[in-house]
């Protein structure tokens, strides 16, 4: 029987703490893995992995309503029934759907006495399978104002799992989205561990507590990393103590270094681009995680 593939997701709560940079750095340290970019409406991992796309699929999920103006009598029942405020009245008195507000629930379709409302599948984005120098990568791009980001995360993860099982990979590393809502929940369910990367700021700590509580909700163990620790050493220490209180493992700190930004601009991971303290600290963090995974 095959070993179960380990899935590890990198989350942060607060945005911009270094999830993607750390994902790429860890990927440089693992001989073979599958990458999954689940930050589907801010996907940046491809900017440092230079993927060669080998498969492209449209992401069609959910539906969107639209009114046939020739059939619409302007009775307004759709507008009354819609709880998402997504109808507007045109100059000629007919109704039309504001597409970005449409939830795709279909209530208007049921109440329209004239059968004037079309209810079509909605293209929300695309997902891709690529080859990278780190291994295969599954990534996606939600269209601007796209809906159903949580389900797209599930699509990306399922594809990554298929590739991992087929190719006998033992690790899927997931670059997660910020926040704690729907795409984060889809990213964390059923994973083996969460790596929480935070920064020593009052907002970083506030958001860390919420995302750690989310990991607890799903009974997934969490590792805590402080990025840019030198910005505030005192708060870094507080986070270390907090990790213990929360019952999660504190695995290390990464000092501030603007070469992290330069690495991004060069399309390289921090491990590939930076020598010295940053590199050593990331190596140490990964070792601590990998040993106890």
């Amino acid at each position: 029987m095959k070993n179960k593939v380990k899935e590890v997701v990198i989350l942060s709560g607060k945005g911009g703490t270094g999830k993607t940079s750390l994902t790429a750095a860890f990927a440089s340290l693992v001989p073979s893995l599958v990458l999954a970019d689940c930050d589907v409406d801010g996907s940046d991992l491809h900017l440092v992995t230079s993927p060669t796309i080998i498969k492209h699929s449209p992401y069609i999920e959910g539906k969107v309503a639209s009114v046939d103006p020739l059939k619409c009598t302007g009775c307004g029942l759709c507008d009354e029934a819609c709880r998402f405020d997504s109808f507007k009245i045109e100059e000629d008195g007919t109704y039309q759907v504001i597409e970005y507000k449409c939830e795709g629930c279909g209530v208007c379709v049921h109440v329209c006495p004239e059968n004037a409302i079309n209810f079509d599948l909605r293209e929300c984005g695309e997902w891709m399978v690529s080859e990278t120098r780190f291994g295969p990568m599954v990534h996606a791009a939600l269209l601007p104002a796209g809906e159903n980001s949580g389900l797209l995360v599930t699509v990306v993860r399922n594809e990554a799992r298929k590739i991992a099982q087929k190719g006998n990979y033992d690790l899927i590393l997931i670059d997660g989205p910020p926040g704690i809502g729907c795409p984060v929940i889809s990213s964390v369910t059923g994973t083996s561990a969460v790596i929480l990367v935070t920064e020593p700021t009052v907002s970083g700590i506030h958001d860390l507590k919420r995302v750690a509580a989310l990991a607890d909700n799903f009974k997934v163990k969490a590792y805590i990393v402080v990025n840019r620790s030198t910005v505030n050493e005192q708060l870094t220490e507080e986070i270390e103590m907090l990790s213990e209180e929360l019952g999660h493992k504190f695995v290390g700190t990464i000092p501030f270094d603007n070469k992290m930004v330069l690495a991004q601009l060069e399309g390289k991971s921090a491990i590939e681009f930076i020598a010295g303290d940053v590199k050593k600290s990331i190596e140490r963090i990964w070792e601590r995680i990998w040993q106890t995974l």
Partner: protein
Amino acid sequence: MKIAIASGKGGTGKTFVSSNLVRSYKKQVALLDCDVEEPNNSLFLKGDIVEQRRHAVLVPKLQSDLCDGCRVCQQVCEFNSIIVMGGKAMVFEDLCHSCGACTLMCPQKALYEVDHEIGTIVVRKSKNVAMVEGLLDVGKALAVPLIRKVKSYIKQFKDIPIIIDSPPGTSCPMVWTIESSDYVILVVESTAFGFHDFKIAINTVKDVNLPFGVVINKDGLGDDRVEKYCLKNNIPILARIPFSIEVATSYSKGDLLVEVDPVYQKIFEKLWEELINRVKSGAKDEK
């Protein structure tokens, strides 16, 4: 005047700009924190809580004796949040989008709607700022209903400017936050990730048909790709906020920069002037 602060990429400084912008204003101003998954403005603005209330959405509940297992509810639900098992309907509240389709369509009238709590609305007063914050409960997936509730406070602030802090990203929570604003500020950092997400955010703002301008934050940390792009595409740069490790450290402690450094007070005062002029002139050329 309603100004939304958005970004695409997380961590570019939306909350930094929002909190300093409202504090730098010399008169009364309102701030809506719509980043309900991770609201942070109150960490910087602090202030006293004047109102706190739970917010609930409607979800269906079954009156079991009336259900005949006909499956109409299951068929009309687009979100797989109600299914018939063992001859009776079963509701999954956390998947429900509160559209009301199942309750409306149930031929037996066996469904009625009840409150399902998803988060808290907190109203604070901090010096010149009236602040409304949404705080989504941990484990709840849908942020948009709480964002809409926060935005419903707009009508309480009739004659003062309203600053609306958006969640990161460009999907539904961000779109629901910025829609119906008079102007959108995109806070950008000129890094590879920042630039990439900035371009997606521009398309989103254009989709919603709103005028927008740019604040370059952490100026000097990356390169000049954002600057060049804005010049080439006639996107106004409203302000530049220089990066320094001192600023980062001050921010990390929860300081409001405009309160500790007059240079930054000046930067934000100038940003207000830009905003007021642009909103007054209709800002049609910036859509």
